[in-house]
């Protein structure tokens, strides 16, 4: 299939997933931070901003992190390219360019989501923010369901799944990192810690699944292990990366070009293996921060390799192939 089409589908899926994850994060934090002490609430909201690494822009626009400023920034801010509004707008733009490839139900669903957000007045949103965020989250989730149920599961669909799972793995890891970095997750009193852990789990839609899987124990160690390494939880990092791997296997690569050492499948395979055999005790405590930031860098490079392999094919011209190969061997 055409690279442009694949790229549009991939980003459409990533943007919708990003919008869903951020909206959930806002809804959960509205709920959780109502119970917190003011100082903790402020740090909690700072953590939400920090999850996308958009802190510099936030401090330019707002003096203090609170429920209003953060939800305005994370949900509504047009200058913030990661805001939910920006994500939904760009998802729709991508969908528009590939209308022939997606089902009409999908097009209708992404349009409805777009108009819901566009036509909602902010004032209205502040009177009942949680309901509104949950409605947007539901619509985004419905979109995923419609996609899976109405679109042929061929190559175009695989690119949607690839974008979706990569984004999801990224968001779960970032939420974990943000909570850890801002809240110093493991050095609080037990009561505070469990409050934070519950918020963390809820931010990843993992609270109930974790409860069931862990037999009721709530410990930082187990929560981190669950979010990173569980094989069945659909927002777990390893789970998502396994799905990416399967998708890449299904898509395959240009058979006429020798496999590059940094092909997406290889890069992803190495990351998967590292996670699969990870001893969770090695990364807890002080090692957590460096581990997660290194992990996110590696995840980013997978995105870059996907773009390089599937979307920017003009760099590998047929008669330049041997030369390129040589360069790589040197």
């Amino acid at each position: 299939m055409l690279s442009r089409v694949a790229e549009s589908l991939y980003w459409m899926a990533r943007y919708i997933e990003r919008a869903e994850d951020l909206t959930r994060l806002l809804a959960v934090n509205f709920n959780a931070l109502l119970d917190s002490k003011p100082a903790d609430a402020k740090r909690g909201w700072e953590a939400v901003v920090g999850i996308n690494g958009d802190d510099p822009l936030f401090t330019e626009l707002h003096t203090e992190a609170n429920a209003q400023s953060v939800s305005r920034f994370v949900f509504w801010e047009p200058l913030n390219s990661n805001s939910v509004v920006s994500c939904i707008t760009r998802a729709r733009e991508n969908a528009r360019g590939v209308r022939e490839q997606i089902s009409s139900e999908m097009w209708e669903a992404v349009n409805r989501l777009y108009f819901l957000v566009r036509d909602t007045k902010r004032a209205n949103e502040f009177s009942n923010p949680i309901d509104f965020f949950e409605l947007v989250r539901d619509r985004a989730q419905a979109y995923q369901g419609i996609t899976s149920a109405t679109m042929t599961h061929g190559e175009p669909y695989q690119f949607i799944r690839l974008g979706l799972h990569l984004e999801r793995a990224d968001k779960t890891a970032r939420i974990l990192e943000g909570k850890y970095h801002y809240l110093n997750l493991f050095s609080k009193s037990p009561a505070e810690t469990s409050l934070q852990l519950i918020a963390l789990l809820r931010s990843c839609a993992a609270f109930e699944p974790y409860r069931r899987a862990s037999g009721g124990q709530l410990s930082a160690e187990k929560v981190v292990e669950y979010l990173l390494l569980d094989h069945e939880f659909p927002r777990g990092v390893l789970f998502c990366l396994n799905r990416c791997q399967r998708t890449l296997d299904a898509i395959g690569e240009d058979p006429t070009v020798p496999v590059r050492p940094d092909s997406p499948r290889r890069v992803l395979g190495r990351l998967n293996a590292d996670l699969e055999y990870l001893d969770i005790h090695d990364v807890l405590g002080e090692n957590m921060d460096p581990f997660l930031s290194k992990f996110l860098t590696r995840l980013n490079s997978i995105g870059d390799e996907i773009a390089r392999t599937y979307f920017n094919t003009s760099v590998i011209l047929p008669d330049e192939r041997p030369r390129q190969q040589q360069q790589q061997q040197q």
Partner: protein
Amino acid sequence: MFSSPGKPRPHYRVLRDHLQTMTAEMFAERRRVADAAFLYQGITFTVYGQEQGIERIFPFDLVPRIIPRAEWSHIEQGVAQRVQALNLFLHDIYHDQRILREKLIPPELVFSSRHFRREMMGLNVPKDRYVHVVGTDIVRSDDGQYYVLEDNLRSPSGVSYMLENRQVMKRTFADLFGRYDVQPIEHYPQELLNTLRSVAPHEYSDATVVLLTPGIFNSAYFEHTFLARQMGIEIVEGRDLVAHQNKIYMRTTRGLKLVDVIYRRVDDDYLDPLNFRQDSALGVAGLLNAYRAGNVTIANAIGTGVADDKAVYAFTPQMIKFYLGQEPILNNVPTYLGWREKECDHILNNLDKLVVKAVNESGGYGMLVGPHASRDDREKFKEQVRASPRNYIAQPTLALSRHPTLLEDGLSGCHVDLRPYILYGDDVVVVPGGLTRVALRKGSLVVNSSQGGGSKDTWVLRD
């Protein structure tokens, strides 16, 4: 439909009787079904220069146009003859220019055409085919004769409406449809693909054909996606293609794929920023070189617009005689060229009786319908014609045939034209039908969709 008031032509009797049994409510109901079908399938076109609601449904009229077999054969042979002659003309002017040397057409007229491309001189195209897809606009006058208004040789649009109109008609008027022996048109996309394959640069059994679109903002984008889907080929934008060592590739997820034939719906000017308009982002840098090297076929060929220049059109009968040694089967509409001093005077003195057209415009833009125009408009046009006579032609307003059409307040006779689509690969293929466009304003002579016209299904009978 009627030969004289109240007397329908024989092949219309069944339709007339059928319409008479229908109440206004029945019409309304079927109209609702038809409109919903168009809306639901997103069969739309885009109107430029209007801020709101740029995507519109192409208005569809429920009353079909019926053409008996004998009449159709005449049209079919006539357009086939024209397309062959026009194709030979294009080959000639980009090679030996015999017709110019024999002074049958003034050379200045050809060389001053905006669509003449020097880049095409001496270039050989596969099977000497320049025009692979043609839409010829035909009107029937009150003398019962068919006249050719113009031949669209660049990238004629509307064929998707011909196909969709038939689908909707079968759905809404199945009962009536069953009472006529109508020839099918559904094989058009297959014929188009065969035609495009037949002009591949090499004798591939599986040439890669793509459709090149300017993108989602183009007025005919619906048609582009429709045809690509029906043919099962990729629809590409300029940025999906890349030229390398005089070959054209498309960028796919499995690397670059060689492209053999480009059915382009992008104008010459925008095809290749290295050779034509440098500011074009719609084309492919290096496409012309690949074309000249014979590694890719462009359909229609570059530079075909010189033959649908409205001033060159006036010479089509001469071309038919010169290249084919035949008499034209279909007549041209008598045409006055602003370019000729005497005829220009005639145009200027009779503006109130003539239709004046800019030679390079289409879609109903740049024209003046003299008898219906205001004094001011006529004066304005006079100035324009005086300023650049080469750019204008004029034709008498024909008494165009009218056809029953369903308007807000019931049936009334509206002016129609007909655009059959002609394919020219190994042979000439004309699918029996075409797009009948209808002026949906009472008395209006302008049928173009961009000017508020609509369309109807066109039935060619088997016997």
